[in-house]
């Protein structure tokens, strides 16, 4: 039974992958490129040690972003505001970390807590608006994203938080090496795998435990599956909404840290601001399951990194974004279709199994 369930849950991503590869091939053919050349070039570069390292680093970011989104998804809350939560979290973390003179472990702990706190606080506004004022979190988190961008641009451009960190780049003061988490170059001698990779694996495991092995996680999943049954079972829905939103925001706060602590050491105006959206896509691909999300994150990161070489073949690297979009749309549709069929087939198989029991009895 469980094997079957695993198989059915792999059908949808398989269809998504198949359809999007086929569609990509058609696009490539229609622009006159060779499908085999392009795919093999992506594969060859993508599996090189350097690309693997970059892929893992990017996947770390995507993984955290998708986890943050999926905590909300698990109880039908849409945290579209991961963008705002992580850029504010990263900025706060950068400011705090750059002013710390502590041993590495302590400094990084404080930095992480700062980022989580700020992310949670920003998500908390949306939670409060939903619970107390009945405002849909979808729209409020989108608005909060824009407001966060404004706040950051103000702080960096017009206050002493920002300094000239490069040619025409304003950002926060550099974090001292004692506060960085640069990681190790254990795949490619030239490039380091972010140290945050391990922290995010830890977060993923924690997420799994929280959801599947704690009472809180049960309440959360129950609310997502049937709000009315959860309520009857004793779950207080407003408290659940607030806690879940805060948790989601806290994880979102971490999204920028692998890059901040592993690469830039400063939050500047060129810090990516859209990692939250890709998190939504990956959460959907991974079906809100940490392992699924991990695979999804690695896959999307692979597409992003390996497409970097395509310019040499005369194909824009954005082909990977198209593939991602296609995969997501095909996968969500096939999940829905598969789910419906699964319900029906399970009912049939139960009826069959019982009929057999009755005969043998």
């Amino acid at each position, binding site marked *: *039974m469980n094997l079957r369930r695993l198989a059915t849950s792999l059908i949808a991503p398989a269809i998504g992958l198949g359809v999007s590869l086929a569609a990509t091939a058609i696009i490539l053919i229609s622009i006159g490129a060779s499908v085999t050349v392009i795919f093999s070039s992506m594969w060859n570069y993508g599996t090189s040690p350097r690309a693997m390292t970059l892929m893992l680093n990017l996947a770390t970011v995507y993984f955290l972003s998708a986890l943050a989104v999926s905590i909300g998804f698990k109880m039908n809350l849409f945290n579209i505001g991961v963008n705002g939560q992580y850029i504010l979290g990263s900025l706060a973390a950068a400011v705090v970390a750059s002013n710390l003179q502590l041993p590495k472990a302590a400094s990084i702990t404080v930095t992480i807590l700062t980022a989580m706190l700020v992310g949670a606080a920003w998500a908390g506004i949306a939670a409060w608006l939903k619970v107390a004022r009945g405002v849909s979190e979808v729209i409020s988190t989108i608005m909060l994203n824009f407001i966060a961008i404004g706040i950051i641009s103000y702080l960096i451009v017009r206050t002493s938080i920002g300094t000239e960190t490069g040619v025409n780049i304003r950002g926060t003061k550099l974090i001292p090496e004692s506060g960085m988490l640069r990681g190790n170059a254990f795949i490619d001698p030239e490039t380091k795998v972010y140290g945050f990779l391990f922290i995010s694996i830890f977060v993923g495991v924690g997420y799994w435990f929280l959801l599947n092995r*704690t*009472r809180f996680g*049960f309440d959360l*999943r129950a609310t997502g599956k049937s709000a*009315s049954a959860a309520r009857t079972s*004793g779950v*207080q829905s407003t408290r659940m909404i607030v806690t879940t939103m805060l948790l989601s925001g806290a994880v979102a706060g971490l999204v920028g840290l692998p890059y901040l602590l592993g690469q830039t050491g400063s939050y500047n105006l060129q810090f990516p601001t859209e990692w939250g959206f890709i998190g939504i896509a990956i959460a959907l691909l991974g079906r809100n399951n940490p392992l699924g999300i991990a695979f999804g994150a690695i896959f999307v990161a692979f597409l992003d990194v390996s497409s970097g070489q395509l310019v040499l073949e005369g194909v824009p690297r954005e082909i990977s974004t198209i593939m991602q979009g296609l995969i997501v749309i095909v996968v969500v549709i096939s999940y829905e279709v598969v789910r419906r069929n699964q319900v029906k087939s399970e*009912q049939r198989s139960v009826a069959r199994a019982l009929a057999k029991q009755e005969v043998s009895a």
Partner: protein
Amino acid sequence: MSESSVAVELQGIWKRFPGVIANSNINLKVASGTVHAIVGENGAGKSTLMKILYGMQKADEGTISINGSALVFNSPSDAIGAGIGMVHQHFMLADNFTVLENIILGSEPKSGGKLDFVKARKLISDIAAENGLAVNPDVLVSELGVGDRQRIEILKVLYRGAHILILDEPTAVLVPHEVEELFSTLRDLKKQGFTVIFISHKLDEVLSIADEITVIRQGTTVGTVNPHVEKVSARDLAEMMVGNELPTPASVGNTIQDQVVLTVENLSVIATGGKAIVDGVSFKIRAGEILGIAGVEGNGQAEILNALMGIESATGKVMFQDEDISKKSTRHRRDLGIGFIPEDRQRQALLLEAPLWENRMLGHQTKAPNAKGFWLNPRGAKADTKRIVAEYDVRTPSIDVNASALSGGNQQKLIVGREMSNDPKLLIAAHPTRGVDVGAQAAIWDHIRNARQAGLAVLLISADLDELIGLSDSIKVLLRGKFVADADPATVTPQELGTAMTGAGRAA
């Protein structure tokens, strides 16, 4: 009644669903220009029959004739085309639309592409005036009460030119004076030549409005009576409705102890709109006692249960043993040892897309064997689910299948088994054996009786009157949110109880 033409004739209607026969060999003749009532217990197959007549479902066998000509309905549009209109029990209205918009939707009067509001308003007020259905066409439906909404539903049907009206449990949601208004409307309609099919299980109402009454029991028509010709009482009808085939749980001894487990004082639930759905009820249940509440569905039972569990807000006082729990959370109440079998099992008692062992945890996620403090204990839950599956004879190939895969009866067995676990002190149960096959029903009764022996207090609501009488130590009759009578299960018959429930007479 004179020998008039036949408006509707159903012959040999059969309808089977997987595992259930909803209608078997239904035969029905409705004379035009009459009010024809169809009565039967919940689940007797009335609604399925009406859905077939309105084209929402197709019969497996049988024929439908309207005004003498045989017709096949593939959709409601076909039925509407044949002059049939349906007033659904759950109103089909758009709240944010005005009365006028709701009525004309789908067959709007137009003048040159534009909606002709003037003409629509005139059409509606003409129909309204002809039939004594006063409505203001320009108010939003959301501002109206149920009585008004029902008038709009009737207007919708008349506006489409229907001459045969089906009303599905039209009085279920109405207060007495609204019922009177509805009946005078129906009498007017009859005078104008409309044919009305009236589905109900409130026998006193049926007797006061119907020209003919057809009784359905277990999916088949068991007889038609004409109250104008024959002298029929609500009691006679109840006998026809209930029959006597079901096994009866025999009462076993008196196990009532001194200790009061549940005290309810002056409990009221007020619906939005101000109607008291539960109206100041008070009662006590002692350890080892089963208190049954008898009542036709929709008289406040579900609300009493939800209020006792803290799911619905209510006024009044609820004491569990010595603790005032009126303001306590649902979880607190559950943790005190209150088991709950709600009325709507799919919405309230199950996570359909979760495996059985997770459903075992639902409502008991704070306690052993499902949890150890903050942590869940899937192993314990799985082991205990296996126990329930065995003890309650839940037919399933595995405890890993989703709850949605089980049949309704097996879902119910799982729920009962779950709520009887952890040695509850109080069990609040609605229809504990609904949908369960006869053998398993007896087993559930035994489980409840054994627990009662050990001191369990039970509040029992059931549409199955034999079950109610057989299990309960005492019975209170609920009508329109109030207790109107007490019955002694040792002496009362289902027929007497059924009569009392409809407000038609006194129980013994």
